[in-house]
């Protein structure tokens, strides 16, 4: 056995007590701070549930058509949505979609500025990159438990856990995209006297947009892969069906709900990818695929 060098129990106790103190004294404030997120999530969920099913299908199939201009993708999206409806998973699918969309939106708002900041300084990058590694590798239960303690079981800790897990790829790809913009073009903008913001918004971000969109795609996929864990602490949705299937040893319930998650993943993955390709040819990074 490894010899005991010093007693770690006080340290552990300090951390536990510290968390308890935060829960006791700051719980209310933190909950209030997260309230807007909850409102956003509820808003999106209520909206998706209130909209008639055929309208949702119509809109998503339409978006698929706009993004690809071919019949294959809309057909695939239609098939996936009909599967969700036929298998009686519609309501859960909407709940899960709402969680994923909220997490993605929040991640976009937070990650892109962080990515921009990272791309501008190697030092910032050196500090942020390990944090991102930690967010992606730390088992989610480790931070799930404290968040549940602070916010109580429900949608907020589920949402926060999803964001923590799903945001890093977007930060990384924003940073990568901005750094990969042709240095000759950036030099030209300087030579013509462009200000830092003119360079960022006029040239750098537009040219990095395809890469940033690939990051959004990754974030949606990561968010979907968190739904089962999120449902353990009260997020509901398709993940909850999977959990119930496991709990009741109902293989079919777990299987269909799991396939439902896959169906959602296919829809969002293919549609964002198609938009990415379209954007690439529009930005001129790649020739149009025609």
């Amino acid at each position, binding site marked *: 056995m490894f010899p005991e060098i010093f007693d770690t129990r006080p340290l552990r106790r300090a951390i536990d007590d510290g968390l308890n103190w935060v829960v006791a004294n700051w719980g209310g404030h933190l909950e209030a701070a997260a309230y807007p997120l909850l409102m956003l999530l509820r808003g999106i969920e209520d909206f998706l549930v209130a909209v008639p099913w055929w309208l949702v299908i119509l809109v998503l199939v339409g978006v698929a058509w706009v993004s690809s201009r071919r019949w294959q993708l809309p057909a695939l999206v239609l098939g996936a949505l009909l599967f969700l409806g036929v298998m009686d998973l519609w309501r859960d699918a909407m709940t899960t979609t709402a969680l994923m969309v909220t997490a993605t939106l929040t991640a976009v708002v937070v990650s892109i500025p962080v990515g921009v900041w990272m791309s501008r300084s190697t030092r910032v990058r050196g500090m942020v990159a390990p944090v991102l590694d930690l967010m992606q590798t730390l088992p989610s239960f480790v931070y799930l438990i404290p968040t549940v303690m602070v916010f109580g079981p429900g949608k907020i800790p589920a949402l926060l856990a999803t964001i923590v897990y799903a945001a890093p790829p977007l930060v990384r790809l924003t940073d990568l995209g901005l750094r990969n913009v042709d240095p*000759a*073009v950036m*030099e030209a903008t300087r*030579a*013509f*006297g462009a200000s830092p913001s003119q360079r960022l918004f006029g040239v750098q971000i*537009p*040219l990095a947009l395809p890469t940033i969109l690939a990051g959004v795609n990754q974030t949606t996929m990561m968010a979907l892969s968190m739904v089962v864990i999120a449902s353990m602490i009260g997020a509901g949705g398709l993940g909850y069906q999977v959990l119930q299937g496991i709990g009741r040893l109902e293989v079919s319930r777990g299987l269909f709900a799991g396939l439902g998650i896959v169906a959602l993943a296919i829809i969002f993955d293919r549609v964002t990818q198609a938009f990415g390709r379209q954007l690439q040819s*529009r930005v*001129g990074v790649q020739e149009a695929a025609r």
Partner: protein
Amino acid sequence: MSQVSSTNDVAISLKGVTKIFGSDPQRALDMLRRGVSKTEVQAETGHVVGLDDVSLEIERGQIFVVMGLSGSGKSTLIRHVNRLIEPTAGEIIVGGDNVLEMDDAALRKFRQTRIAMVFQKFALMPHRSVIENVAYGLEIRGVRRDERLERAAKWIETVGLKGYEKTRPRQLSGGQQQRVGLARALAMDTDIVLMDEAFSALDPLIRSGMQEQLLELQQTLNKTILFITHDFDEALKIGNRIAVLKDGAVQQVAHPEEIVLRPANSHIEEFVRDVNKARAIHVSTIMERGEFEACELAVQAAARCEEVLPLFADHRWVGVTGESGEQIGRLSATQVIKALARYSAAPPAAPVVTEAA
């Protein structure tokens, strides 16, 4: 091309500009000032000397060519003029203003209004159409949209790209892309244009076409052009004055002809050896002065040997005229050949084989 006017109208002046790349340039600079050689400085401190005490005066209305091999510091040099690179030491005066004293805002204003640049790799913005690329500098300057598009369209026409306004740069050939780059710089309507190996990435035929277009434009525009190249022939063709750069230090600054006829050191001789001397030597240098019977054909004294040579196909003598058009001398094919042979850098070690003729 006109001879260099001797007026002291200096557009760009560099004084003792030194650039050292590395984390502690001051220390390397001190060593350099103490007389330590560049290689030793690099070996001891790991600092690379990019430019070593470069002083140049570039007159208004000139095409001033900086010629050097890769790694000679020529691209570093041109970036000092608009301060894309900060010098370690020295002074940079453009149009009477000290560029190094400008704060960020003043520097941006300076780049927007006084100096334009053309790049080796074109550096066009792939997400903008040709006309939007050409109008970019004016957009940054804050010119109204309709006005800047109108001016951009005019320059697109001047460089011969009319009809391509809405095209994306990627869909153009290399030569066309660089025409866009040139139009983008000229649309700024600045007195000074920096051209960093602007034609080096182009095919030889396209390159020579672009050189001629530049000379043609220069006749009406009369801008101060600082042109960087590694191609000595190109330097001779377009330069009013040439500076040869090696290892970050200026080797010789002179009129093209003078460089060919009197290279300052062995490094420059090496360039001169392979060069088309007929392009560099002017008729005035080798003609027979005096009054002769009027010749059927005549050329200007400022013409180059290159231009006279074809005339000898049908004529023994070609007259040479002064600036006002009167004949001031004459020239024979023999004289031209002698001149070209004499100025060949290779010493005539092997006896010239005189074929039975």
